[in-house]
């Protein structure tokens, strides 16, 4: 065990020694790999910030049906059977919201109670909220639109609003973004592997004599390969750290711009850096990509030297 640690410490020392001999070249490679990693890291940071928003909001479609303001309470309540018929057998929880309750909700949630008090009388109509069941995917949007159209045709109905359609669209958009990000990450991951592959290839060529001598004095393949593996992993790790640092730094100016935009919607949405666990995972992934590039390069080029 002691010998195993010693061998790895020696390999790490050798890898750092080679980096120290050509720091400019190593830094240049770190920058190239970091640029490739920064884009998927930024995309992931954005997705991780938007994801809770789409998850917190209900994605079960809701339809709000507003009765004519001139209709009496009895006329409004009498609409219930017709609303149920318009559903044509689709399951839904139908909730009647009296105008007084709607006003109370508006007062409590909007913070505009003082303004609403100056209106004198309640401007809101009676309404129905239909929570539809069995519409799980964005593809069901057409079915919801058909129900909304039938509801609009009912007598005494002023407005019909499909409340949660945008959440569905957001969820679908996030799905597409996730796929795009995955493809982007795969492509750029291959770029990282290729850059490390080439870096290690050059290093193997530079150290040809050292490798040959080591073999002659009894070095095992593991002893010869290990420093290159450490170099690859180190390159990936440093590039991952640089990419994450760049993304985190970019969040400051981005958040300034987002804050102005979000204020228009009474929101305080801000992009936050990834959680420590996420950062750790991305650093491990970066080091893993570097290691993969080194593994492929070493297998190919050292076999040729043999």
């Amino acid at each position: 065990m002691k010998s195993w640690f010693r061998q790895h410490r020696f390999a790490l020392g050798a890898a750092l020694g080679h980096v120290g001999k050509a720091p400019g070249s190593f830094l240049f490679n770190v920058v190239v790999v970091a640029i490739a990693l920064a884009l998927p890291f930024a995309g992931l940071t954005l997705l991780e910030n938007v994801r809770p928003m789409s998850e917190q909001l209900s994605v079960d479609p809701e339809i709000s049906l507003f009765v004519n303001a001139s209709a009496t309470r009895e006329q409004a309540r009498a609409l219930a059977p017709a609303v149920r018929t318009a559903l044509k057998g689709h399951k839904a929880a139908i909730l009647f919201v009296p105008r007084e309750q709607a006003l109370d909700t508006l007062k409590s949630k909007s913070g505009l109670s003082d303004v609403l008090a100056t209106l004198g009388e309640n401007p809101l109509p009676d309404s129905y909220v239909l929570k539809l069941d069995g519409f799980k995917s964005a593809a069901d949007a057409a079915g919801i639109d058909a129900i909304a159209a039938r509801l609009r045709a009912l007598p005494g109905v002023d407005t019909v609003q499909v409340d949660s359609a945008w959440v569905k669209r957001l969820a679908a958009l996030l799905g597409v973004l996730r796929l795009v990000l995955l493809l982007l990450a795969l492509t750029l991951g291959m770029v990282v592997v290729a850059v490390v592959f080439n870096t290690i290839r050059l290093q193997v060529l530079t150290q040809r004599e050292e490798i040959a001598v080591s073999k002659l004095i009894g070095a095992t393949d593991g002893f010869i390969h290990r420093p290159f593996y450490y170099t690859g992993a180190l390159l990936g790790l440093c590039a991952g750290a640089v990419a994450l640092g760049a993304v985190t730094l970019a969040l400051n100016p981005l958040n300034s711009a987002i804050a102005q935009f979000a204020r228009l919607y009474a929101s305080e949405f801000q992009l936050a850096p990834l959680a420590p666990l996420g950062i750790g995972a991305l650093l491990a992934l970066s080091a893993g990509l570097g290691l993969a590039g080194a593994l492929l390069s070493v297998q190919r080029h050292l076999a040729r030297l043999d």
Partner: protein
Amino acid sequence: MIEFHSVSKQYSPHAIALREVSFKVDKGELVYLAGPSGAGKSTLLKMIAAMERPSSGKVLVNGQDIGKLKAASVPFLRRNLGLIFQQQRLLIDRSVLANTMLPLLVSGASSAHAEQRARAALDKVGLLERAGAQPLELSGGEQQRVAIARAIVNRPQIILADEPTANLDRASANKVLDALRAFHSVGVTCMISTHDEQVLDGAARVIQLEHGQTVGGAA
């Protein structure tokens, strides 16, 4: 310790390096391989170090059949050998001490232990005071003695030296040979190839090679 049984090595139909070579070297022997360039001396030494495999016949080193040796076992065979080449093959970007320590580090020794042993080996070849120098700061003879120190630092059972004095003046060559003979005197088996007749003066056993065949000293 080293046995060749009807060993031939053929690189191509027109390039035959060894033909039916047979001999045996006992433990603690000092054997010279003599012959002109192209006689097969280097090929023979390379076979002992498993750098080449025989096309036919059998090479046994410490009872291990080199022809059947697995690639993963070769490094462990070489740790029992001290290899010295005509071109010293020192790493020019490392100090004399670091070059000498390398075989021990390769074997998994600690840096402190490797340094201690490397200093002792450099002392034996008279170069301890040059431990911190770079190889290119040394003369050819001194570089060859560093190569000897590197070869013996692992306390090998066998030393194989391929034309170790070829590029050296007589005084330097004598120092190199004296160092090798000193290791033989403490029981290390040595095989030294040379085409220098003066090196063979007083040699107890010389295996003479010509055109890949033994013409003397094999028995």
